[in-house]
């Protein structure tokens, strides 16, 4: 592979954490629908924002990797295509949120859209197995050389700690701004409120 294999040490942890954050956004969407607590919507937005940043970075890192290894910056390969869809779908949801001012309506629309968009997360992960792909199979301790395992784990944990701190802070900021604005009275559950 030569020296370019070093990109692997930042590309793979970015991928793992990006998909993890978008999965967290999906779980927050489910929790909002079940509990109707706007704190879950705050966490959802924070996790989704971090997930979109990492997924966009992942695409850029992948493109830099692709040029010396595949000879092109971009290819409509299943892994790359599903990742691009992921970035645009979740970035679209974040953009959609800015157009909705009423917190309960915004949270409900976001939760439903997030659950729909999250269907692409397993597609991204398994795309290299479902279809013939230029991209190598998923990187995990079972599929990479033993020498790669610990550096990858350390980098992944470092990114996870950084992103967990940033997302916690971001969720607090979103909650503070929401509480400073006009908030409707709490409901037993968001699904009950949806019919009103």
């Amino acid at each position: 592979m030569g020296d370019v294999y070093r990109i692997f040490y930042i590309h793979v942890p970015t991928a793992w954490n990006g998909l993890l954050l978008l999965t967290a956004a999906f779980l927050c969407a489910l929790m909002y629908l079940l509990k109707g607590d706007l704190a879950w919507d705050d966490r959802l937005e924070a996790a989704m924002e971090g997930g979109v940043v990492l997924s966009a970075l992942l695409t850029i890192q992948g493109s830099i990797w692709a040029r010396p290894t595949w000879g092109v910056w971009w290819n409509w390969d299943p892994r790359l295509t599903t990742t691009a869809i992921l970035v645009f779908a979740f970035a679209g949801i974040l953009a959609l949120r800015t157009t909705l001012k009423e917190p309960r309506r915004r949270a409900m629309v976001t939760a439903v859209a997030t659950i729909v968009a999250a269907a692409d997360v397993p597609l991204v992960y398994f795309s290299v197995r479902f279809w013939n792909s230029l991209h190598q199979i998923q990187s995990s301790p079972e599929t990479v050389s033993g020498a790669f395992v610990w550096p990858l784990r350390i980098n992944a944990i470092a990114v996870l700690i950084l992103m967990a701190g940033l997302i916690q802070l971001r969720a607090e900021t979103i909650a503070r701004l929401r509480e400073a604005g006009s908030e409707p009275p709490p409901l037993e559950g968001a699904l009950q409120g949806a019919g009103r």
Partner: protein
Amino acid sequence: MTGEIVGGWEYVIAAYVISAIVYAGYAYSVIRRDNASRSATKETKS
């Protein structure tokens, strides 16, 4: 032909520099927005 890619350090450097900029930029953005929201809510209360 060994299949090994010769060179490529410029791609490695580019990937690490861009990643550092994105991570640092996002961290700065989150902290800046948090500080702005604290100031805004303090002004609203006073």
